[in-house]
């Protein structure tokens, strides 16, 4: 390093010594177009984020497929020749189509009481995605609100930290089980039980970040100029946290879908007449001892794994893209 530097140094001085006075200082002249170019750039945060995200082909492709999947779960019941997910289908002589393997009449076969698996899977995916998205949204809203108050209002810090210390000690799953046991099983119960503790991690994280950037010079300057606190929070603090918030939301969705499967397994899930991926997997699980019927477990798990892996990858890619350090 040192050697290289001194070499360049000597060479430069040599060059300068050999130059004429006129070569060293030339006037730039006034150019109106040039003056417009400085002091303004058309940098837009969301544009750059979008550009950075689009560069990740894999994540973008997954996002498109996921969107189509979500759209299809809503369109599917209106397509011609579809069965009702709860209809028990009988043949001409009144006997149920039990455990019919995938084939022409039933694309993915039927389950042990003669319901169409294809219709149940799409209906179940819709339920599970609905649960996942609602939980992620609710957690983000509550978590951001509480986190901002926790970090920004000094008086609130003590009491909220104490509450955090207590709640953090109980395993989340135990609360989930407890609430599901006490309340009647329904989609609302599940969403409520999952949100009850989930927001606190988000709030905690936002609080820590806000504590770090709250008293930076530009925020102090803003406060001195009389900017209202709400504007400082929305304009100065939250944009910093976009990438983290998005990542957490994207990871909450697979976690919520997985929790639904778990809660269904321990017998506190949705009633069977509301198909969900948890219900389908649980029905399929009972049959794993006979290899011919494993398709009833495999199809729902394929969809579920695809959805959760997609959210994981998209979340990570988006969070990378939303970080201004990765913008050019």
């Amino acid at each position, binding site marked *: 390093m040192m050697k290289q530097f001194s070499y360049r140094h000597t060479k430069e001085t040599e060059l300068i010594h050999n130059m004429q006075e006129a070569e060293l200082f030339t006037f730039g002249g006034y150019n109106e177009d040039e003056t417009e170019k400085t002091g303004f750039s058309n940098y837009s945060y969301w544009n750059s984020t979008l550009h950075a995200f689009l560069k990740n082909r894999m994540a973008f492709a997954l996002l498109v497929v996921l969107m189509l999947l979500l759209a299809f779960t809503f369109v599917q019941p209106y397509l011609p020749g579809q069965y009702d997910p709860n209809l028990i289908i009988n043949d001409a002589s009144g006997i149920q189509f039990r455990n019919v393997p995938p084939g022409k009449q039933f694309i993915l076969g039927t389950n042990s009481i003669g319901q169409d698996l294809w219709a149940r899977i799409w209906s179940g995916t819709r339920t599970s995605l609905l649960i996942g998205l609602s939980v992620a949204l609710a957690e983000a809203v509550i978590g951001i609100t509480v986190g901002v108050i926790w970090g920004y209002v000094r008086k609130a810090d003590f009491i909220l930290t104490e509450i955090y210390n207590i709640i953090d000690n109980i*395993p989340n799953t135990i609360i989930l089980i407890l609430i599901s046991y006490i309340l009647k099983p329904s989609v609302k119960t599940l969403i409520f039980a999952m949100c009850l503790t989930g927001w606190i991690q988000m709030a905690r994280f936002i609080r820590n970040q806000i504590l770090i950037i709250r008293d930076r010079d530009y925020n102090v300057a803003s406060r001195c100029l009389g900017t209202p606190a709400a504007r400082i929070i929305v304009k100065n603090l939250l944009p910093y946290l976009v990438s983290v918030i998005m990542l957490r939301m994207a990871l909450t969705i697979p*976690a919520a*879908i*997985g929790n639904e499967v778990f809660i269904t397994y321990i017998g506190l899930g949705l009633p069977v007449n509301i198909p969900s991926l948890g219900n389908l997997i649980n029905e399929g699980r009972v049959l794993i001892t006979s290899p011919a019927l494993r398709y009833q477990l495999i199809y729902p798990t394929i969809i579920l794994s695809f959805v959760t892996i997609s*959210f994981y990858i998209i979340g990570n890619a988006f969070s990378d893209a939303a970080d201004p350090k990765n913008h050019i």
Partner: protein
Amino acid sequence: MLQYLSKRIARSFLTLLIILTAVFCLLRLMPIEGYFQNFDKMTPQQIEVGLKEMGLSDPLPLQIVHFFKDLIRGDLGISRIYRSNVPVSDILADKVPVSIKLGIWSMIVSLFAGLPMGAFMARYQHRLFDKISTFFIVCIQAVPAAVYFLYIQLYGTQLFHVSLLFEIDDPKYWILPVISMSLGNIAFYGMWLRRYMIDESNKDYVKLAKAKGLSEGKVMFRHIFRNAFVPLVQYIPTAFLNTVIGSIYIESLYSIPGMGGLLVTVIKKHDNAMVQGIVLLYACVGVLGLLLGDLMMVMLDPRISLGRKAGDR
């Protein structure tokens, strides 16, 4: 040091009291049919008498006092449905050792597999091993445990030629549950150790060690690993809690006669006293796990100031 310890322990104890009270109050909302063996055939009068006998129609504060009095004597109530009229503590006494054994084995396996994995990933960054392991970690974290547990059971039982019924004395039957329970934590340790080691390897003291002419392996394991391991310790309690939760699913899946499997059974049978006992026990385990984690941090890292608040991790 002693002052910090006593403060931290007193704090945990206080937290535990608050949690127990809160959970107890919540559990009062349990459906009442869970208190009786043959609820369907009972008249409203009988139900009322029964509730009164169990002290359930008392005002809430009185119930809480009774509950803590019983708790000190080690009395967690009486199971009515799962086993009729057997104290909950007696039933749990048989089950807890099995769960502890499973938990300890899975902790050992995950530490001994996860740490070397993370270390080698950092050592051979961007090489094949790193890529394969990253893929493994993404899969484990993205696919819900509830799903891959099922497939491990499905194909594992065929592979090891074990039946679906659990034999507690045959070590062969412990392999699959322990592996299933460890996978999540292996990914967890691997991911964080890799990140910390890579962060650490850009620091000046590592450059100095390399400049001195120490071999790559020595720098990695003498210097980097040691420093990267300290922040990892704070995740061990979380990992431990994951293990505890995993055990609910795993034990029930493999019908291991432990606490987690029991919880699933009594939930399905609606036995309130049993659910209450097990949930409270899990709450205690949670508090204890975090306490141990904090104490371990203090012992391992001399840089941590002892006067700090317990919550600031």
